[in-house]
């Protein structure tokens, strides 16, 4: 117990016993202790003067926090459809067999556990996994065998081959953002010389819209925050890139972190914010150290801190918060809750974060890509920025291309690019469908490949998953339904129960027990999710099913039995326990056996 006490006290002290740091505290404690035991949570609660129940509630919310003991090696296979198509399930089976364990269970010696997790953002170099939070990509049987051997010999992760942890950028097409050379501080200098008001005017002229998916006009958000009552305004960068199939923010944070942080500072200049927070998804934790180094460099260069670039009173600094495996935290109000050290449950809106945000302070929440783009506007002016793309969708968009194509990776195009153009560039010669915008996005069938990526046609948060003619639209939708059921925060009735019900129906269809009536129920649940859910997770969760039901209906119908009703269970199989208990397996012990046939004739 002395160990536990000392450990907790140490971590709490490092975080100044600040309850808003609760999630960060739990992440660090788990690093040291392996898992968050009941006594550990009690001590954290005492140390922070929080009710224990609240601490337990937070610890239980996030996928990467464990209340039960886990293996010393915790292996999570990325379970996105693109990883699956590249053979992840077979590789996971191999690894489990080599290590003599069942998926989802800890080995008896406490050495290792192997399970799945939602998309880890490595779709261009999958199949991928996380081992103790660190990403390993490009898995094949050879690499999986090596991993099994390293685990069995208890080799510490730092001694594993460095090549395992190499992550490629795979930038395939550069345009305005990725193609420009950038001098840190140059955009900020330009904006400061314009003055706060004129800088915001340039933002307005640019008509930049949010790149996280919702497409809200950034200048309007900034202006509302600037005009909001309240001191100590906040700029939050949403780097909780959880949408399956999206990995552009990962590349931006790896190679273009200066632009991202400068964009946050530009937002602070426009709004008068003094605090910046980067919310980094747990899967990208390996980026923390390099990102902190960039922040230090910027502080030394006078681009962060007090009187930035000599401008008296322009004070702004940035801290990094880690997520811990919760897709819903990409929703801006859930993200704010998580930043405050709470369960990532979306708030009631209005009020919107621009007036009541982080700790009640006016807060701007912008996507990584949005913020990086503001540096271009500062340097070239709003009008020049608005000259590319389409009138309603100005500038360029980064697409994360993955799936059945020769050249997966990052492609930057002016908005308005046709889907067929992207398919041609990425070497997808046999595409049957494309999932644009991730699991919550739009399913595009072959006859729509002329459509364009733009807010007014096919909006996208950045994912672009290609599926060739060998793929089954039902299986793709099934994977996405599983994802949403796993990621629903459970706050509202329709999403908490509806996503799980939907999963049940899709499972039933997959097992060949589907009936026409199930399709009607699926459509009914889709409608409830869309109409009654509390946040965007629930309202968009049915999208892949709605779209594939319309565009690829045969994929569903060939799974149906022709009956109107079919029970979800097999009546005869349900008697199996009774048969084993009585040691009988004769025809009379089966519902469809001779005995029951005679019974029917009588």
């Amino acid at each position, binding site marked *: 117990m002395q160990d536990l006490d000392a450990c907790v006290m140490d971590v709490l002290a490092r975080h100044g016993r600040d309850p808003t740091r609760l999630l960060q505290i739990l992440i660090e404690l788990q690093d040291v202790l392996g898992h968050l035991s*009941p*006594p550990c*949570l*009690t001590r954290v609660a005492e140390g922070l003067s929080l*009710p*224990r*129940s*609240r601490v*337990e*509630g937070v*610890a*239980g*919310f996030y996928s990467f926090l464990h209340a039960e003991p886990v293996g010393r090696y915790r292996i999570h296979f990325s379970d996105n459809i693109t990883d699956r198509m590249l053979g992840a399930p077979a590789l996971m089976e191999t690894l489990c067999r080599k290590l003599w364990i069942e998926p989802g269970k800890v080995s008896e010696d406490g050495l290792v556990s192997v399970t799945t997790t939602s998309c880890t953002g490595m779709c261009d170099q999958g199949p991928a996994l996380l081992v103790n939070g660190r990403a390993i990509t490009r898995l094949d049987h050879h690499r999986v065998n090596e991993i099994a051997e390293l685990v069995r010999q208890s080799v510490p992760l730092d001694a594993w081959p460095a090549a395992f942890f190499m992550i490629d950028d795979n930038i395939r097409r550069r345009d305005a953002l990725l193609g420009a050379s950038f001098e840190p501080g140059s955009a900020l200098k330009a904006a400061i010389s314009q003055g706060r008001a004129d800088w915001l005017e340039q933002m307005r002229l640019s008509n930049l819209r949010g790149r996280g998916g919702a497409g809200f006009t950034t200048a309007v958000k900034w202006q509302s925050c600037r005009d909001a009552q309240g001191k100590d305004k906040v700029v939050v960068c949403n780097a909780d890139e959880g949408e399956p199939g999206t990995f552009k923010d990962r590349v931006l944070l790896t190679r273009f972190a200066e632009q991202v942080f400068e964009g946050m500072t530009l937002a602070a200049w426009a709004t008068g914010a003094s605090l910046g927070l980067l919310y980094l998804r747990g899967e990208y934790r390996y980026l923390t150290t390099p990102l902190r180094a960039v922040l230090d460099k910027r502080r030394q260069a006078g681009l962060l801190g007090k009187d930035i670039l000599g401008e008296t009173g322009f004070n702004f600094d940035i801290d990094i918060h880690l997520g811990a495996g*919760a897709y*819903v935290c990409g929703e801006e109000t859930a993200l704010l809750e998580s930043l405050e050290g709470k*369960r990532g449950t979306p708030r*009631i809106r*209005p009020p919107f974060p621009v007036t009541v945000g982080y700790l009640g302070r006016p807060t701007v929440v912008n996507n990584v890509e949005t913020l990086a783009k503001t540096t271009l506007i500062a340097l070239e002016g709003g009008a020049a920025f608005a000259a590319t793309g389409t009138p309603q969708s100005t500038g360029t968009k980064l697409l994360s291309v993955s799936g059945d194509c020769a050249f997966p990776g990052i492609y930057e195009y002016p908005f308005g690019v046709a889907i067929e153009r992207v398919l041609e560039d990425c070497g997808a010669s046999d595409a049957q469908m494309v999932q644009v915008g991730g699991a919550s996005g739009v399913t595009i069938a072959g006859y729509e490949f002329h459509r364009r990526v733009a807010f007014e046609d096919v909006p996208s948060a950045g994912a672009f998953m290609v599926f060739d003619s060998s793929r089954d639209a039902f299986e793709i939708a099934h994977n996405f339904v599983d994802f949403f*059921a*796993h*990621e*629903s*925060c*459970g*706050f*509202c*009735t*329709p999403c*908490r*129960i*509806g*996503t*799980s*019900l939907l999963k*049940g129906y899709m499972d039933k269809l997959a097992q060949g027990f589907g009936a026409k009536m199930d399709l009607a*129920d699926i459509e*009914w649940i889709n*409608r*409830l999710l869309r*109409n*009654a*859910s*509390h946040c965007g997770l629930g309202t968009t969760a049915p999208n892949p099913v709605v779209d594939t039901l319309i565009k690829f209906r045969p994929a569903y119908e060939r799974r149906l039995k022709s009956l109107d009703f079919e029970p*979800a269970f097999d009546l005869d199989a349900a008697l199996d326990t009774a048969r084993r208990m009585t040691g009988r397996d004769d025809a009379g012990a089966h519902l469809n056996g001779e005995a029951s046939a005679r019974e029917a004739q009588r």
Partner: protein
Amino acid sequence: MNGRFMLDGQPVMFEEGQTILQAAKAAGHYIPSLCWHPDFPPHGSCKLCIVKVGGRHVSSCALQAKDGMEIESNTPEINGERRALLQMLFVEGNHFCPSCEKSGNCELQAQAYELEMTSARFNYFFPVRPVDASHPDILLDFNRCIFCELCVRASRDIDGKSIFALTNRGIHKHLVVNAESGRLGDTDFSALDRAASICPVGVILPKRVGFAVPIGERIYDEKPISLVSMEKER
């Protein structure tokens, strides 16, 4: 600013700051709800109070009324969706009304009658949720929890004890109590707490009085919830 909106074609006056649900009820129009309670700020989780404003679904408990709003509430479409939400709640937990001591006083059951729910429609989840009888005066039967968080809010905001909280997420979300053992008996919970009498369903039950009032003579056995709720808040 005070104003007027149209609810199902009838004018409703409201005062500044009132939500749609508050204004509607004050004017004598019932809107079904479960997680909403007049003593607490809106929670917006059960979604039973959804209405359509200008063709868009919103939670009427959380959205402030605005002048000129056109609102649909008591329509076959919205009531159909409310019924489906109730069906979801029924299949999610283990609700055996005939053997439940809250029967007749239960708001979930009463809403099901109100909205004419005659079957559960969906497959039951049959979750395993052990009861907690460790407290001398109160029994916790988690099988019936609908996650309205009224006990969480009452214990935190009124009793100042935070006896209850939710943990895990999605379909695995569940109620926990403020003790390392996980047992209510190891907390400072009292049967006199506000949280002890706020559960709209049969999770938090006082011991030894389960059938003091016989089934058949209970609140919603006498009157539908739409009437009871309007009388209580008048």
